[in-house]
């Protein structure tokens, strides 16, 4: 991204002159105060909002000029994890995790083995037919991770995935994301939990008032 700028219709400038490169396979923490532009940057990376000016290339696609169909393609190759999980509480864990595959046209009979496999990975294989409300906050976040990884995305965007979790559960969530990253998935994670960087080091991109305030590798 070069000289990236985002101004919302309300007039608020979320990002201003941001120039940054994130390579395939990196684990990147986006840090900064509330309103620094972390969530806006993540939104732009999956086409939720378009840059007002500047250049943003995501997965070889110019996000300013991309058609709706290209944006859909990007979203199919991107796993998104939200702070509030965005799980469907009227649907089972299976239905929640299967949703990205369903969107991509998978047949129902192929879904179950794949969903079971990713739930096994996050340690929830016995909760396949449970409803999210029966799960703890940490389990719900693990379901959200399972949903994000189920379609084998090239990139995972995580918007404060540990925000509502206790330290131990947050560490476990980070373990999963780190593990996915080791398997080649690019992970970009907005967070306030700076203490996690000690146990799970990575590249840190610091934003302040919509601008780049720091970019370093934390070991």
């Amino acid at each position, binding site marked *: 991204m070069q000289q990236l700028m985002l101004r919302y219709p309300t007039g608020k400038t979320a990002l201003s002159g941001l120039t940054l490169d994130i390579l395939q396979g990196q684990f990147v923490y986006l840090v900064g105060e509330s309103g620094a532009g972390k969530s806006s940057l993540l939104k732009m990376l999956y086409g939720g909002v378009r840059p007002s000016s500047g250049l943003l290339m995501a997965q070889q696609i110019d996000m300013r000029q991309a058609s709706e169909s290209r*944006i859909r393609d990007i*979203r199919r190759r991107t796993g998104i994890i939200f702070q509030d999980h965005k799980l469907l509480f009227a649907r089972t864990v299976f239905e929640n995790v299967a949703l990205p595959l369903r969107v991509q046209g998978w047949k129902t009979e192929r879904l179950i083995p794949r969903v079971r496999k990713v739930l096994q990975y996050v340690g929830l294989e016995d909760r396949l037919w449970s409803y999210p409300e029966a799960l703890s906050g940490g389990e719900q976040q693990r379901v959200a991770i399972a949903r994000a990884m189920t379609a084998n995305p090239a990139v995972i965007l995580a918007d404060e995935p540990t925000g509502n979790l206790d330290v131990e559960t947050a560490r476990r969530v980070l373990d999963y994301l780190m593990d996915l990253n080791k398997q080649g998935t690019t992970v970009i994670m907005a967070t306030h939990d700076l203490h996690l960087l000690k146990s799970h080091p990575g590249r840190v991109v610091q934003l302040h008032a919509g601008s780049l305030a720091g970019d370093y590798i934390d070991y």
Partner: protein
Amino acid sequence: MTTEVIPDRVNTRLPGGFNLPPFGVHQILALIIVCIALWAVGVLWLGMQTAGQWVGSWQDDIHIHVYLDTQKADNAKELEQGLAAIPQVASVRLISQQEAARWMQEWLTGGGLQQDELAKRLPITFELSLSDERSQFLFADIRDTARRFGGKVNEDEVNLAQVHDLLSQAGLLAWFASLIMAVAMALIISNTLRMTLLARADEIHLMRLLGAKEWFVRTPFILEGMVLGAGAGVSAWLLLWPVELAVGEWLNTMQVDLNIWILLLPLLFGGAVVGSFGALIATARVVSSEASA
């Protein structure tokens, strides 16, 4: 790849595509309201069917009578020839005064009148059989001819003969009423689906975030509208049978035989089309708003 059996208790209702969303109380209420509206449309068209058959049962036998005062008896021959010259008049018959008096006495069921005395007071009467009562200028021609020779047309009979005009106007009104009902039903279904859409806004938003195509997001709701409309149509058709049972026998005495089956497909498909249209209206502006700070 191993295939796994879904447990019996579990009903996988994956959202999107050709999967119907679950029916709730809003949908059932909408189905009832649309069913009542479609039933009213069905009753309206049954009424049209009844009117058509009833009119058809006696319209073929209708005759127009033209009267000529006995003081103008000299014009009778010319009037008869003039009436016979009208192309849509099949035949002209001079009714004798005795026959007219006899008929009138029968009609008055005795009445205590002297038939000879009555015959003297009756005008000269011509009975016209028509070959095409729908012809545009036929009745104007008959009136003109009668007036030219001092005669007079029985206007009540003319009105009866022209009842098909009224029927076709009533038919247009029935179409208009059906159209208004269809729009109202589409709006009712649209409103119901709108509530469902609002209730499931998170799900729709999530599907879009995952890269779902618009047809994938909207199809379940359009299917729901279609099923709702078609269900209401079939229910409305079933509810027409009690009407048939209630009045069918009485209508038979008027040589009217109601055919309910003919309304099944129009109500079924009409309901489905109206439901789909309502769903299209409802889903036309489903926007997942993200571009706000």
